[in-house]
């Protein structure tokens, strides 16, 4: 599973990335990389700065210091639409979808973001066959094919989480920033999404923030542990798991690690 992928270049890199909120260092000098074909998992206790890190990478937040590179080009401080259009898709920890739209409409809108422009006024959106195809494919990938026409606010919490991921996929990203994709999912949906991420990992660079340790250890090629905004340990999952500092600071508190 790990280390057998060819190194097709670093897709995502951060150098000494920091974000302060007043006196609080939410993210403090984080340097990490994510290559094509790699699943780089970031774990850490609540408040470690994992979500803030993703927000810095996706352009939702501007860094206070440090740099972000995408495929070698600096993208520090670019707006979230620009970063998205450069091929970075993200999902949110707290489900962030269009609740009054159907599953299909959510994903079609996501797919529509890849048109050269949506300043198209006269042809009905539903007649764009290519968009429908992309949307349906994303919906099938996350296992919601039977629910495509349901309004999202009528779905279960776990299904809404699947919509969140489907929307991200419908934008056809090369880099995936997934913020606790499995949170709130049932066991069956979880294993389906884990299999999906495994299948996607070959053609994507995936930065995965996740609390489900079984998922993390079955998917990750690289594991980074964050505590108080800073990187405590980073490397091969076994090495990190064996680290005394990590066991004391984080993993030791969780019996199943």
């Amino acid at each position, binding site marked *: 599973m790990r280390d057998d992928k060819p190194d097709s270049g670093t897709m995502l890199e951060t150098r000494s990335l920091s974000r302060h909120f007043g006196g609080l260092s939410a993210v403090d000098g984080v340097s990490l990389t994510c290559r094509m074909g790699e699943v780089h998992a970031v774990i850490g206790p609540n408040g470690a700065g994992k979500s803030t890190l993703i927000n810095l990478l996706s352009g939702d937040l501007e860094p206070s210091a440090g740099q972000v590179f995408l495929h070698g080009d600096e993208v520090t401080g670019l707006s979230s*639409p620009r970063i*998205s259009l450069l091929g970075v898709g993200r999902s949110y920890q707290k489900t962030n979808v269009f609740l009054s739209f159907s599953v299909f409409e959510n994903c079609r809108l996501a797919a529509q973001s890849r048109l050269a422009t949506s300043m198209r*006024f006269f042809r009905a*959106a*539903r007649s*764009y066959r290519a968009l429908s195809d992309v949307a349906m494919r994303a919906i099938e990938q996350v296992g919601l094919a039977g629910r495509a026409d349901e309004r999202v606010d009528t779905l279960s919490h776990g299904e809404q989480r699947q919509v969140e991921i489907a929307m991200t996929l419908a*934008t056809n990203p090369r880099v995936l920033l997934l913020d606790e994709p499995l949170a709130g999912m049932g066991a069956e949906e979880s294993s389906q999404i884990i299999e999906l991420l495994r299948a996607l990992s070959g053609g994507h660079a995936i930065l995965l923030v996740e609390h489900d340790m079984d998922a993390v250890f079955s998917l990750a090629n690289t594991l980074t542990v964050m505590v108080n905004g800073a990187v405590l340990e980073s490397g091969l999952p076994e090495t990190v798991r064996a680290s005394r500092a990590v066991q004391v600071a984080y993993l030791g508190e969780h019996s199943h690690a």
Partner: protein
Amino acid sequence: MSNRALAIGLSVGVALLVAFPFIGDRFYVQFVTKILIMAIFAGSLNLLVGYTGLVSLGHAAFFGVAGYILALYSPDTHAASFWTSLLLAVSGAALMALIIGTLVLRTSGIFFIMATLAFAEMLFYVFHDTAIAGGSDGIYIHERPVLMIGNWQPLDLAHSGHFYYLVLAFSIGVTLFMRTILRSPFGQVIVGIRVNEHRMRALGFHTFRYKLVCFVIAGGIAGLAGYLAAVQFGVVNPEMLGWHLSGSVLMMVILGGMGTLIGPILGAFSMMFLEEIFQTMTKHWQLLIGVVIVLVALFLPRGVAGLLPDWQRRRTKAGSAQRAPGKTHA
């Protein structure tokens, strides 16, 4: 079934409006003309408030500017060309919306409401306090524009029946135009912005551009309504740009039902009929209007249109059924 009910309902409504000049007397024909103009105006505001989620309290600016453009462009001694003056008025209003929109769309929420109000008030005082267009008294349009196609004059705008049909055609045209753009990719984007602008940006949409284009379209349509109002009354004054009118048209949108095409039309009819009725009852008629608005806000959160069956959702279902034949829905 419900699609058929909708089609029948709309056909009956349009047929009644087409037949109306044959049954109603001239006063009421002019009254309904005025309502239809307000329905176009309210429809344009609904694009912002109901579909994009931008609550503007300065939408009369575009309505009034178009009226003033017609008044200032019209020569005193003879009539202006309908087509030229209409084009000037609508593009002038759209240009004004482009300028104001570029500035106000940098704000959001309550600040957006205040910024739109501020710009509209600035325009109000420009026309109210300077002599460029008659100051607070306004300015007359002595000759109504003449509508010619080649050498043929199909409609006489001074004729109340002819003008009624022109306005009716524009209201239907504008409604169909809005329906088309709302179903287009552009329309999906603006509705997405209303529901969750943050997510739209994360998906890669530069939302500012779409909001600005929507603001310009809404401004242009408001300009069309303002132009027609100026033609109907033959006079424009600063009230046409005032916050009072902006507030009235916003109330029509809320009363009728935000985010539906039929809502603003129902809102314009309800509000203007209520005004007419209450005015015959008491000079404190605005108090009664206020009571109705409060009651609607309390009991009909989706406005008068909320009393109609929910066609919108069923149409979505019907549409998806077409897309995926053979699938059944629970």
